[in-house]
């Protein structure tokens, strides 16, 4: 059940990603429509975050091709925003909430340029949008998990992009933050933005997303949520990894054998 769309925002073609020769994503192939909130769903270790990192060019591809609006990522970075997993950074870093959000303006600044008054205003607006304005001078280390997540989202907003990739924004956040994030996603969709969210909780997935991608090392389904949420497809996703696929992967790693051109 893999539905393709016309004029896709994201087009992933035959993507394979490997860590130390061991493929963690096998031949992923899909297209995503614009203006939707899209969920990438799958169990732990399914390769959801890996998929986002591959799309953003953070990790190398073993094979395949990724195009955004039919361009390679390096040509359209200014139109794309990436929200890493909250745990991927050290929140003890000496910075305030405001300073982290200001980083979202960095792509717009040239080497010698300092943030302007306008940049600071945008930072304030973005903080207000995630209901964090009152914390602007707080040390990031003093925030709760949900607040930290909202700071990351504010930074993404400050990028003023059209396409957003968010890695587990709902992981470990309190109810107030979760509600604030959902509200924000809806606002963004209303502005015509496309948001791709990695999510592991099946309970809430149906409620949150318009379009759903089911993955577990391979792509199981991609389409509008009504068509994707079937017992068969969910069973295929959560029913465990394919034994043979896993075995072959281990073998490739052990024999240091390159499955694709990665070398």
């Amino acid at each position, binding site marked *: 059940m893999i539905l393709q769309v016309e004029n896709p925002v994201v087009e992933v073609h035959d993507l394979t990603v490997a860590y130390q020769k061991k493929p963690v994503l096998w031949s992923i192939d899909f297209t995503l429509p614009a203006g939707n909130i899209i969920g990438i769903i799958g169990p732990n270790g399914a390769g959801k975050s890996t998929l986002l*990192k591959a799309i*953003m*060019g*953070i990790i190398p591809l073993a094979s395949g091709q990724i195009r955004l609006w039919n361009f390679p990522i*390096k040509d359209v*970075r*200014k139109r*794309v*925003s*990436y929200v*890493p997993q909250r745990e*991927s*950074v*050290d929140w003890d*870093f*000496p*910075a*305030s909430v405001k*300073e*982290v959000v200001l*980083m979202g303006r*960095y*792509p717009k*600044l040239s*080497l*010698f340029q300092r943030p302007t008054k306008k940049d600071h205003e945008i930072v304030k607006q973005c903080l207000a949008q995630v209901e964090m304005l009152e914390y602007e001078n707080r*040390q990031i280390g003093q925030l709760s998990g949900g607040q930290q997540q909202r700071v990351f989202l504010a*930074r993404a907003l400050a*990028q003023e992009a059209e396409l957003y990739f968010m890695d587990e924004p709902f992981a470990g956040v309190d109810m107030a933050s979760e509600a604030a994030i959902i509200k924000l996603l809806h606002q963004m969709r209303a502005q015509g933005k496309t948001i791709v969210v990695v999510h592991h909780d099946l309970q809430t997935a149906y409620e949150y997303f318009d379009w759903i991608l089911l993955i577990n090392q391979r792509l199981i389904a991609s389409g509008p949520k009504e068509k994707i949420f079937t017992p068969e497809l969910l069973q295929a996703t959560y029913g465990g990894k394919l034994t043979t696929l896993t075995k072959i992967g281990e073998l490739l790693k052990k024999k240091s054998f390159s499955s694709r051109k990665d070398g």
Partner: protein
Amino acid sequence: MWSAVIEFITFREPNIRFVVLGSIFMGISAALVGSFAYLRKQALVGDTVSHSVLPGICIAFLCIGTKNTPILLLGAFIAGWLSLLAVDWLIHQTKIKPDSANAVALSTFFGLGVFLLTIIQHTGNAAQTGLDKFIFGNAAALLKNDVWLFLGLALCTIVLVSIFFKHFALLSFDRQFAVSIGYPVKALEVLLTSLTVIAIVCGIQAMGVVLVASLLIAPAVAARFWCYNLKKMLVVACSIGALGGYVGAFISYLAPAMPSGPWIVVALFFIALASFIGAPQKGIWARFRLGQNNKRRVQEENILKYIYSAQEDGLIKEYTITPQCLAELRNNKTLEAIEPYKRLCRKNLAIQKGSAYQLTSKGIEYAKRMVKVHRLWELYLAHYLHLPPDHVHEDAESIEHIITPEIEKQLIQLLDNPSTDPHGKDIPY
């Protein structure tokens, strides 16, 4: 002795000026790049590079046969970079973990360096005297031309870090995001690493290869205790580094026979120690005081609350009781100590009446709130954690002291303005 000190402080001799200036700038540039290494959790890298430059110096000397500083430093720079490449290679090609890979590279390179140094010392080449100064450092041995070189390199480092400040800050905080916005992360990492190697290479003359890593990391560690902002942290770290450099130059001048590296390290150690202890909020002393204050507050709040309850139960009149009576009533000997009562008096929460103490109206208000949040918390536990009424009191005894007005409001809302606690007692509003 004193004349030497005065001579040093007044910079009367031009030579002193150079040595001091060179040492200070060395300290600044090392602290600057060291701060980024520290924030990127690469403190070990400094150690690896500094130990690994020794064979580079020796090989450079063996090639040219004289002590030409720029050439020796070039050798050091190359060896430093090679050691990092070796670490990288070990991590990626073998299953060795990063800490072990650093240890392997460090010891191998340093061993090779000492080996070469011994060979050089036995060649009988007169030019080699002083080469062993590179092990523990001697700031006074800085020559005028060397100082210009170090000064130039240090200034370059400071200028480059200022230009790429945004980039380095983002790289240190969130590398993935830096990649995602298209920063040339690999190139930036090479630049930052090169600056680190240069800072180390500049530092070995004064610090020696064994100790120069501390000039990178100690200022950053100390500064982190005082600062919550990256720019401020860098400024403080650089000041500490400059101070370290100054101390080194000073000692070298007073006692030329003594290696300056250890002195600088000892000076940095005391600065770092003072920071661990004395820094506001994060320092040991501040945390100790916070703990003490909390303990006192808990004592005071408990007394207020106990007096309030005793009045509520009709055991006392007009909120007045002696410490002995209260201790007996609560079956708690510690309540006999009168210091907490005295503190309550000083805060106008109670007044002394003979040997007894009476709550003021302000004290009654305070006590009432304590009882209120205690009972609200009990109710919350009973409701939301499904604890039986006889299990909630102990927990509330400690939690009541940290409930903020904000949480208090939330509790009242969640519990829908409750009137009684799980034991059936009224919640005072």
